[in-house]
């Protein structure tokens, strides 16, 4: 039974209707995660550096924003971005993009705090040594502080990327045809194999996230 279930649906689960120009399934999950991951990483770096280098007023605004974003469930945030922003601003953004935006923003908020913590962890002595060498604050950040700080931050970045990959499953609430959504569609059609279908779904994510975790661990062990 499991075999014919797999045989009939595997291509749809893996890449949706790609042949008709509508990527979906695991492929879309990867696409969403990659795009949101890159954006979140950049946003997190910029936010974290701003938290360290910016004035007190900028920091207060950023901190409030981060606190609010961290207090709202991702599900609610996706909902806001998808249904309510168009009503509020009269602009329509495609579903995939809203999900990418929501995931990028919320993960950037988390990452900016990790970046800030990573920079703070580098001792004051380093800053002062750089200053003694005649470097500006920005030069010190770029050449002295960031290189070791980024290496130390890698584990928390990897963790955040894994979280993001898992959270992309929430796109299912707004009907974006990613891995989880496609699996519920198949489950709804087949009706009597929820354990098998959701089990397969779990294994798919498990493979992806474990690979990411393993890659992160390998990169962490590499010499600088």
């Amino acid at each position, binding site marked *: 039974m499991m075999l014919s279930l797999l045989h009939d649906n595997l291509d749809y689960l893996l890449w949706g209707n790609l042949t008709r120009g509508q990527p979906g399934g695991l492929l879309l999950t990867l696409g969403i995660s990659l795009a949101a991951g890159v954006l979140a990483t950049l946003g997190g770096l910029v936010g974290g550096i701003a938290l360290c280098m910016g004035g007190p007023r900028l920091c207060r605004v950023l901190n409030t924003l981060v606190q*609010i974003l961290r*207090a709202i*469930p991702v599900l609610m945030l996706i909902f806001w971005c998808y249904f309510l922003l168009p009503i509020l601003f009269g602009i329509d953004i495609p579903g995939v993009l809203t999900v990418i935006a929501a995931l990028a923003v919320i993960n950037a908020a988390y990452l900016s705090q990790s970046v800030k913590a990573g920079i703070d962890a580098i001792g004051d002595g380093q800053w002062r040594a750089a200053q003694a060498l005649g470097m500006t604050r920005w030069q010190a950040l770029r050449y002295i502080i960031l290189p070791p700080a980024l290496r130390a931050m890698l584990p928390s970045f990897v963790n955040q990327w894994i979280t993001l990959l898992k959270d992309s499953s929430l796109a299912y609430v707004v009907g974006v045809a990613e891995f*989880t959504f496609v699996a519920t569609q198949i489950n709804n059609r087949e009706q009597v194999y929820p354990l098998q279908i*959701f089990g397969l779904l*779990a294994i798919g994510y498990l493979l992806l996230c474990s690979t990411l*975790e393993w890659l992160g661990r390998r990169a962490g062990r590499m010499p600088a």
Partner: protein
Amino acid sequence: MTPPSWLGQGWLAPHYLGWLLQGAAMTAALALCVCLSATVLGVLLTAAQDSKQRWLQWPARLFCSLHRNTPLLVQVLLWYFGVGGLLPDQAMQWLNSPHQLALPLGLNLSWPSFEWLAAWIALSWYSACFISGELAAGLRTVGSGQRLAGRALGMSEWQIFRFIVLPQALRHIRQPLLGQYTAIIKNTSLTMAIGVAELSYTSRQVESETLLAFQAFAVATLLYLLLVIATQLAGSRRSAEEPGR
């Protein structure tokens, strides 16, 4: 006061606000139960991973990596729709019919619905793995010399863990732990997929009945913010009271 046109027709009637408050209460109750059980389970998982016994270490590690590396939503669906189908009919019937446990003082504790149970188990197991991750990080801050000292005093592995390592580690992980508790509050929102009447579920319910999407979600978002802020305030108050911190 009439709302602007883009808000739709009118504000939420008081009894819909009541529904949302009920949803928030359900979210709070579920989150509280999960926090308690996940913390206990998290400590056990950490102790198992920390132990020298292979047969304890490996299953605990496997359990954690399985749960950490799959989306919570998938786990919730798997528990409710998948595992629910595996249970024998009689068990399911018993689980779904009302039961009451009479407590002293005339209180009655009613058996929760299967939705609630599935949500509680899924959330507890998932969160326990993250809590155990934070605990393990906290444990690493306790030097191995202290463990050796404990052994020299003739303490057992469990005693060393319980009386030397854990109290110190707990102090280090108060903030991360608080972060996990807020994550639990937010994660309860996923259980709307299996029909648990928590805050996200009731906000959709209010939305479908009044068709005032903006208002319903704004109130729900606000209530989530309040719950999370209350948790954080309670947590930081506690750590401020802590002597020697």
